[in-house]
């Protein structure tokens, strides 16, 4: 099996740098200057740091980092933005190879079986991957191609950003010979033990009898020996692309009140419920965006699959009511996923219908179909006491 590892070094920092330049699909507020060494941090820890800040490794306490590098640029972690950038990257990769396995932020494996004949060679395919990631995300990825995940990952790690490294079949052991044991996918303590035993490279491990490595390292010894010898049967597990349905609604002018968002959400959920068509969803993912940039998101998992519009809306309304917007937003999007058959439920013996309402809805649908868009609107009060008349009422397409 041939596969590729696509890797964006220091992913959170790369995304912040890109945002600071205002480029890619994630342009937005950012402060990561181009040349200044920077540290991305969570509440108390370093998340990622520029390579020159050698003592500020991920996981190190922020207090230590600030003491060591007082002049570095400190950027608060924006996990939602990184996840969004990673998702865009995965979608770009799935346009090249149908089987893609995510392997953490900014890293993924691609199954290349059957693809190489469509390209001039492995190098051409690698360049295509780099270009696709760059065009869709603005990020510079490095690509490693090999017959196993481990060799491909090492090849990607060693390649320069934007470049590719190809390990030809049968050459894995030779390629890995001079690689440090610190790059083995085990705990750092294992690497320390190997160094203490004067085993510094994968070539050193490969030169030992398998039984000796197994005796020393028990369960992982065999795996370590195999990896060092270029034997890697770790299968690629492609991510499931389960059916998901998304509806979104944009505001003509940005809004800063949650009331307007709730009204729009009601419409979005109504449309989703109609699209479910006697099926039910287990998960609901709500996002609020400003000029395409993610401002807020929430993933909700229902206790059992539901198609109940009221139930979805109750949950969404609770979340949106508590939302305190710090900036104006212009779009709300809701995605339902893990869609299943609707669970059995006792239905009403006598259902209530309103013939007049049904006729009205039918007419609205006809008008919409004829003019290609909503022509009938529902006026909804969102902030009736506002001092600005335009904030008091909004018009929502009347289509459900």
């Amino acid at each position, binding site marked *: 099996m041939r596969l590729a590892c696509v890797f964006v070094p220091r992913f959170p920092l790369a995304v912040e740098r890109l945002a600071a330049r205002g480029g890619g699909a994630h342009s937005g507020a950012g402060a990561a200057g181009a040349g200044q060494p920077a540290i991305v941090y969570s509440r108390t820890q370093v998340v990622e740091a520029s390579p020159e800040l050698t003592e500020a490794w991920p996981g190190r306490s922020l207090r230590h980092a600030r003491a060591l590098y007082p002049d570095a640029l400190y950027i608060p972690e924006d996990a939602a933005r990184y996840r969004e950038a990673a998702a865009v990257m995965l979608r770009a990769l799935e346009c090249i190879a149908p089987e893609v396995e995510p392997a953490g932020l900014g890293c993924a494996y691609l199954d290349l079986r059957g693809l190489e004949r469509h390209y001039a060679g492995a190098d051409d395919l690698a360049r295509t991957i780099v270009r696709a990631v760059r065009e869709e995300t603005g990020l510079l990825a490095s690509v490693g191609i090999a017959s196993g995940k481990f060799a491909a990952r090492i090849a990607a790690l060693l390649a320069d950003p934007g470049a590719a490294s190809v390990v030809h079949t049968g050459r894995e052991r030779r390629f890995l010979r001079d690689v440090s044991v610190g790059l083995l996918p085990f705990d750092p303590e294992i690497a320390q033990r190997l160094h203490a035993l004067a085993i510094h490279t994968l070539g050193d491990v490969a030169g030992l009898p398998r039984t000796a490595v197994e005796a020393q390292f028990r369960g992982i010894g065999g795996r370590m020996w195999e990896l060092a010898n270029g034997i890697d049967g770790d299968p690629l597990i492609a991510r499931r692309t389960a059916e998901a349905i998304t509806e979104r*609604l*944009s*505001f*003509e*002018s*940005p*809004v*800063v*009140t949650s009331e*307007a968002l709730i*009204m*729009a959400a009601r*419409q979005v959920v109504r449309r989703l419920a109609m699209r479910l068509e006697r099926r039910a969803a287990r998960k609901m993912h709500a996002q609020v965006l400003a000029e395409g940039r993610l401002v807020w998101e929430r993933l909700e998992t229902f206790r059992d699959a539901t198609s109940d519009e009221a139930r979805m809306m109750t949950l969404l309304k609770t979340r949106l009511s508590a939302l305190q917007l710090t*900036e*104006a937003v212009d779009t709300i999007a809701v995605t339902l996923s893990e869609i299943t058959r609707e669970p059995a439920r006792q239905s009403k013996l006598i259902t209530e219908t309103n013939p007049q309402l049904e006729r009205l809805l039918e007419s609205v649908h006809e008008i919409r179909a004829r003019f*290609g*868009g*909503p022509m009938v*609107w529902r*006026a909804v009060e969102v902030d009736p006491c506002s*001092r*600005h*008349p*335009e*904030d*008091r*009422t*909004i*018009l*929502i*397409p009347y289509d459900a």
Partner: protein
Amino acid sequence: MLKAPGRPHHPDTVRRLSAPQPLRVEADAYGTPRRVHHRGLWRVVMQVHDRYRTDDRWWTEEPISREYFELLLEDGRPLTIYYDRLGSRWQAH
């Protein structure tokens, strides 16, 4: 809601009722409207029912500072307009 940018209207968007529209106004030296260009015609302002100022969202990047006038026009129509103090322009609801 904030400003009314001149973006093209997408057919499937949430719209505002009473969105502000640009308006031509002739005002006196005190900034009080005397004539407004409304529905294709210049109309004389017969009465200013109310005049008040709002300053809002000064903590955001898009602050609001408006001087509102509730007018009665010569044809008997009421009209609410405001002077956008930051954009130096007249708008009508």
